[in-house]
């Protein structure tokens, strides 16, 4: 059964918790809302944390990461609430 409350999100994974928190700062400074979530299996990780952003903010997030010299290690799309 499909949960009708699920919406698509972009999620970014990083090398480490340190890098994830640094990326969180990058998004905050860029004015891009993000939520820190447990890493979903779509990133290929079984634990750790990741950053979830709205789909239409994903490109801006990637640009912000690149500008900061801190690109994400992986990006995935997930359905979330």
């Amino acid at each position: 059964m499909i949960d009708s409350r699920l919406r698509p999100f972009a999620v970014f994974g990083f090398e480490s918790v340190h890098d994830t928190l640094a990326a969180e700062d990058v998004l905050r400074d860029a004015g891009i809302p993000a939520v820190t979530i447990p890493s979903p299996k779509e990133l290929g990780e079984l634990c750790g944390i990741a950053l979830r952003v709205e789909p239409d903010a994903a490109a801006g997030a990637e640009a912000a990461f690149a500008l900061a010299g801190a690109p994400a290690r992986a990006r995935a799309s997930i359905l979330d609430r």
Partner: protein
Amino acid sequence: MTEAAGVIYLDHGATSWPKPPEVIEAMATAMREQGANPGRGAYPMALAASRVVFESRRACADVLGVPDSRDLVFLAGCTEACNLMLKGLLEPGDRVVVSSMEHNAITRPLFLLSQQGVVVDVVQADSTGLIDVLDMERAVHAAPTKAVVCQHASNVTGAIQPIADLADIAHEMGALLLVDGAQGGGHLDVDLAGLEVDAYAVSGHKGFLGPQGVGLLYLRPGLDCRELTQGGTGGSSSEQDAQPTGRPERYEAGTPNTPGIAGLGAAARLLAVHGSEWRAEEQRLFRVLKGGLFAMPGVTVYGPALSEPCVPIVSITHDRIEPDRISFLLDRRAGVAVRAGLHCAPWAHRTIGTLQTGALRFGVGHGNTEQDIRTALAALAEVLA
């Protein structure tokens, strides 16, 4: 003087005391409100704990002149940091050149490594504890050398070693410069990137003013130092058997000391704001103390001349009374806390000629007042009369 404790604390070479209230409060907050395991979850308290570690690392990097805070590793102390840089970088057959002023945190790991085939050659410092760069240069040129190992400042005489020159000497010959910075951080305005060291061990609880049980190791970018401990890091790659190679996680297996790291971060933030002012004041007080010691009959002062730069540590002996007796009497009569003995640095005491007698060490630091110094000098004069 801390009236409540009735102590004139002049043992800052061992550890700083009292700790700034901000350090204590940060540690209490970490335990009270950020007590989850950092890096191990995405719920608010775990993220708060993760952020404590993250922000503390950045604050320490800022105050130590480290451009990328990932190059700073949190460890249990400076001794662990020294062990990691030595055992993680040296292999059987390597040759190291080391100063004769080193603390046991360096000499004991090197002794073990020498039994495993690392060649250890010692460069003698002068009687004040200072290494001559020409002596070091000759030693490094004498044979292929993997690393120069040297303290930043002596825990016995306060002598400050010429680290930037030693970096040039080491690098010119393709060697690493590994520094025990136990007495450097906090007491000196340390710029690690500027010094061009390859590894630098930092004590969190001495001049840095943080709590005991936490220290730092700086590893320059790209330096491949083997980790000594493997285990969980909480982050990515949990599915792999091999330890992650990314920094800082590679070197931080296991649950970190979050309260200690929180306290260290608070100390770093204080040093960023007040460090210059506090260093100037402790140097002023130290000169009052050292000048008074130089003027005292029967006292031999070990360390650079009063006009020479040094960290606020000095050791003395007396021509009639043993250091341990002076220490005991200063405590009993005036509540002056100082340390007699070899200060875990027999090499240094051999160098300055006090291996058989030991010496009495004074260490000045943040929180001391001029009245502390005047009282201690008066008490010493009375004890030695």
